[in-house]
């Protein structure tokens, strides 16, 4: 593969093509990821959107996108991507579109869609080897409706539908593993707070064709319960505690781009967030904090042993 144009922070785009003044919340980690992704992909991109927070980016008569946008429905954005991609290919083949009129198709969904109602359409798009980028902003709940529990909500997190002492009783679904089990062209985890890593991964994704996952952790101030000014810090803590591994899947194997050394204790990440406050107050719940720590430790042990 040819060398990255993004060698250092100074190589990152200095101006953004996504317009400002959107309806997203202050400190939205999802919007940050979309902005950075868009800078690398460029404006000949069509975002095919499923219902979620980002649906409110384009509200008639305004849009922050300099390229195209199609809102579909919650369950079937990948199928919308399929229709656009197929039609572009048909027209390129027929000669009714020039090569420079082609578009990069990006499906833009939240984690509720990606792990639940839209998973069937996503899975089928991978089966068909659809040439598209699937950008999931993972704010770990149904954020747009007020942070109800989704399949991506982490164990123990309180949400609007798991408000009682225990928080989310289940485990966060591993969307990255679901994708890679189906052997896509590419999959990567990214974070707006790590822009250089993100830009390199989008650069790689852009150079490939076929199904490509970009899974962006999206710290969510109102949904997770922290001040908007701490959004970048919370994201970085997710990486440094090992809770959110930065990794990519390419040529059939998973590579971890950053193995946190030393790994900070998970409570450094949990404690600043209101959704985990019940683990610390009124009494510290060592048992559950220990469980969360043990799960993270087990993950990285597997990585060190070459199994993840």
């Amino acid at each position: 593969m040819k060398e990255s144009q993004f060698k250092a922070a100074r190589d990152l785009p200095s101006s953004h093509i996504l317009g400002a003044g959107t309806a997203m919340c202050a400190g939205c980690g999802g919007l940050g990821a979309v902005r950075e992704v868009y800078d690398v992909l460029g404006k000949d991109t069509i975002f095919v959107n499923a219902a979620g927070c980002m649906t409110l980016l384009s509200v008639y008569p305004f849009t922050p996108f300099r390229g195209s946008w199609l809102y579909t429905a919650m369950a079937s954005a990948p199928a919308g991507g399929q229709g656009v991609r197929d039609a572009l290919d048909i027209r390129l083949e027929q000669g009714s579109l020039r090569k420079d009129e082609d578009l990069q198709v990006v499906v833009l969904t939240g984690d509720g869609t990606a792990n639940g109602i839209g998973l069937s359409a996503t899975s089928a798009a991978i089966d068909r080897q659809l040439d598209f980028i699937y950008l999931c902003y993972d704010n770990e709940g149904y954020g747009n409706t007020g942070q109800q529990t989704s399949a991506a909500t982490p164990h123990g997190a309180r949400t609007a539908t798991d408000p009682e002492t225990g928080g989310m009783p289940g485990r966060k679904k591993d969307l990255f593993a679901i994708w890679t089990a189906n052997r896509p062209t590419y999959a990567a985890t990214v974070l707006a707070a790590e822009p250089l890593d993100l830009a390199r991964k989008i650069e790689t994704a852009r150079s490939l064709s076929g199904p490509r996952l970009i899974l962006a952790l999206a710290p969510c101030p109102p949904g997770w319960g922290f001040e908007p000014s701490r959004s970048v810090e919370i994201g970085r803590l997710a990486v440094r505690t090992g809770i959110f591994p930065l990794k990519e899947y390419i040529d059939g194997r998973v590579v971890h781009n950053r193995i946190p050394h030393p790994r900070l204790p998970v409570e450094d990440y949990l404690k600043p967030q209101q959704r985990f406050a019940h683990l610390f107050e009124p009494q510290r719940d060592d048992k559950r904090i220990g469980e969360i720590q043990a799960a993270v430790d087990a993950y990285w042990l597997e990585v060190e042993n070459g199994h993840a």
Partner: protein
Amino acid sequence: MTRALLTGNAAAAWGARLARIDYLPAFPITPQTEIIETISRWIGEDEMRCRMVMLESEHSMLTAAGAAASTGVRTFTATSSQGLLYGMEMLYTIAGWRVPLVLINVSRGLSAPITLEPDHNDILAARDSGCLQLHCATCQEVVDAILIAYRLSEQPQVRLPVIVNLDGFSLSFTREPVSLPDDQAAAHYLPAFRHDAAEFRGGHPASKAVAVLGGGAYSYFRYETHLAALAAIDAYDDAAREFEQQFGRRYPSVECYRNDDAEISFVMIGSFATKAKDAVDRLRDAGHKIGLVRPFMLRPLPEADLRKALVGKSGIAVIDQNLAPGRGGILHGEVTSVLYGQQERPATVLSYIGGLGGRDIVIEEFFQIAADVRAAVASGATPAPRLLYTRNELTDMRKMQAAAHVEATGDGAVDGTGGAPSKETTA
């Protein structure tokens, strides 16, 4: 032009082929599957240039269809029954996208109980979606309706999806002689896909289906869709007139059969209307002034043509192959609302439900319906809607219930499937 003996499904595939479709997103469902299999075979044999893709559901299939049409290709797809309902969210959505495409629905009754056989509850569930609807009665009409539907759908003042409906089994699997236009004639009638400035392509940013805030913007776009559907009434007449000029086959939005001097009219849609025609002929032979009125286009509802066909009649019988539980026949409501307030409107508009889930409507029933209308006209009293069901059918049902160990719930009542108090199995 060639003559061929074709099933309704083969006729639908031929319609798509003659329309030179670019794109077919597909999902199988009985009794539609033969359509997509036929087209798939033709693509494999290089008889057709079309990209076909199998989706994982009708919901996705309709999403892909609308998205492709938004990107500038002539798009065709097909479904039936449960599939149409599974995709219902996207039917409303793609109508709002204002995209031209043609969807075939092969009508089949809806669950529960699950069945494979035809009635019209599926297509009528899409009545208010914004998609236009043409209802075929013969295999010939299936081919012709698809060509007309594309002409209509691609008109700039319309730009709405058109659903072409044909009945499962009685058309989908029934061979009839069909006259197939040759490729050149079809291409003359239906020119190449009409591109739109808002199509997605690089260098031309476009936003489609963005959110609106507030009722003002929402109402505006909804009214636009409604006005486009109304504009389809005249656009349809133009498309049908040109079709007649070129091919000699006439498709008025409302077909009237021996209806001009009729005192009593049957109103029906779909293939069973051909049974009504037979009944009309025999009743005419017996000296009764009776006719048939068959809306070929149901959305937009050609109100003026319907009124013209029905005002001045002494009595009408609307025969619905659908059932809106708690209301009755859906067409009956449509027809009476069109006539309300008209001078010389028929005082008697009787409602019949029949032909559900593949049940036949036999000629004796048409005779009985005609007799009911005459009696109601004479007495001035409109009887309650009738659910067609014969003594023999009830006897057969009782035998099945006995076999299923179901106890009858009362005097002559028929157990509903859902709540039947079955000890072992439900029917």
